[in-house]
């Protein structure tokens, strides 16, 4: 028995030695490759910032500018002449925040329902919910717009907040996180006389904070980046969310490119900063939610 283990370690050791110089060589290449990828990923963001600080004339120079210029203030002025830009950012904040709050409540509630109860029709209802995720959203876009018109929701934020307030993905994600809550705690609370909603609110919710964090970032991003919905229902400049506002800037020959890039940067940077601050937790939450169960 002992000799066998020894043999194994010997094989593994020689294998290690044989590979050590290979690995060193490989490592340099791997790091170069990975860094090259990071460069490609970041370059468009960097270039966006460079162009946001350049005047229209400088942008059309050849070779193109690669370093920051001094026209940021002018670009911002032009941008604010074309659009109520800070109002647009504020609209996006309002829409995304309200959407996130509703999603957190309804999806955690639904996730708790699926994770911690046995009830008649559970399997079928769960399957129906998952199946609804696979339906292409384009299938319903025309009637969706007609409905919004019929409800008188055109030019309001309601169509961007209410229809997605309890969505299948969010419920699925929250269920993944809530399945880990021990049944004993819930039963104990029941014996102590807590009501079902109170158990959800006082026990399940605080125990699934990582899930809630992941879901809130995802929802916030989704609402912030949503485009076709707001494009269809928002009609006044002062109601535009940031994506719609940006899309109205380009598309003709007089596009003020520097100002457009300034707007793009202002629309993207808050999200990028939030993501960088929360990315570690967010990605581990995402992978945990995606692979469990």
């Amino acid at each position: 028995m002992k000799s066998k283990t020894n043999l194994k370690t010997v094989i593994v050791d020689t294998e290690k030695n044989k590979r050590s110089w290979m690995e060193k060589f490989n490592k340099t290449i791997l790091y170069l490759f990975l860094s090259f990828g990071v460069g490609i990923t970041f370059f468009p963001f960097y270039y966006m910032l460079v162009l946001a600080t350049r005047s229209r004339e400088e942008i059309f120079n050849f070779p193109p500018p690669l370093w920051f210029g001094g026209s940021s203030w002018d670009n911002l002025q032009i941008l604010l002449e074309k659009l109520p830009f800070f109002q647009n950012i504020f609209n996006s904040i309002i829409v995304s925040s309200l959407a996130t709050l509703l999603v957190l409540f309804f999806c955690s509630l639904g996730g708790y329902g699926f994770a911690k109860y046995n009830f008649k029709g559970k399997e079928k209802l769960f399957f129906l919910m998952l199946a609804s995720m696979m339906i292409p959203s384009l299938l319903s876009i025309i009637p969706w717009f007609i409905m919004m018109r019929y409800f008188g929701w055109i030019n309001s934020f309601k169509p961007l907040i209410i229809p997605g307030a309890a969505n299948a993905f969010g419920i699925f994600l929250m269920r993944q996180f809530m399945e880990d809550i021990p049944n004993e705690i819930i039963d104990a609370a029941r014996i102590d006389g807590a009501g079902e909603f109170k158990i959800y609110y006082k026990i399940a919710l605080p125990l699934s904070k990582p899930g809630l964090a992941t879901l809130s970032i995802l929802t916030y991003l989704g609402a912030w980046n949503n485009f076709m919905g707001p494009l269809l229902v928002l009609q006044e400049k002062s109601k535009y969310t940031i994506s719609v506002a940006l899309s109205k800037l380009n598309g003709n020959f007089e596009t003020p490119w520097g100002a457009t890039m300034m707007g793009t940067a202002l629309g993207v940077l808050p999200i990028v900063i939030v993501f960088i601050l929360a990315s570690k937790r967010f990605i581990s939450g995402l992978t945990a939610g995606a692979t469990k169960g």
Partner: protein
Amino acid sequence: MRLSKKAAPYVFISPFYILFFIFGAFPIIYSFFLSFHIWDGISPKEFVGFENYIFVLTDPWFWQSVWNSLVIFILTTIPQHIIALFLAFILNSNLVKLKNLFRSSYFLPYITSSVAVSMVFGMLYGEHFGILNAILKYMEKFSLIGAMFNIINLKLPIRWLGEAAWIKPSIALLVTWQFTGWNMIIYYAGLQNIPESLYEAAKVDGANMRQVFFKIILPMLRPVILFGVTLSIIGNLQLFEQPFILTPDRTGGSGRAGLTTALYLYRTGFNWNMFGVGSAMAYILCVFIIILSLINSKIFQKR
């Protein structure tokens, strides 16, 4: 009011079903109803049977849009998933440090809005001022690369968004840049689920890196690949923002080479107010998505 334990779950999950019925299921059914009518949204609806379907299926622009979507789908999905798998494999292999930094960096394009990144790529693709052409022009100066450009008959500057032949690759390049990181995260999660003991056994048996990759990782990742590619099919066949922002006139550009089905559907429905035709188009597109997904699951499902 106190919820009984029996009623509680139904109450808890009901918001989803209520909202899904109103804003999900009902529009789908209503869309089906509309697809058999001619309606501009104002005048009375007129029942026309299968006319809308026949109109769409015999419309050359529709078929061109399907072709465009398919080409973009292939041009982006294949590199996207290969690079993503490779990146996930490297990051999972314990050979490199700073994993979190790399993961977050690659994920960044996914979280930024398609509209914003499309606008930035529009600048990169500029014909006379874009950085991509500037780099190519610089590279052309090296005789070897210049000769290569000659062989493949590459004329600079490239009219990325102006010339029909380049529009689809331009859109595909952007989509690949945008979504590779997302796929990498999916594959990374999948790799984390492969038990360590499998690698150890392979090591003892003297398997090399390539064997580990093709004999263990790929077969084990099959369900994850199936999931990732299915998402790519659903996403790519509904590609809208990128061609909408990138093509100069928002109609798909020169020769309609960037007119995806989603963009065509948008124009049919909301620019020309042909709600019935648009609904029929949506249903036909949905059938294509289902067919592609089935082919995909045939390929990647565990045999």
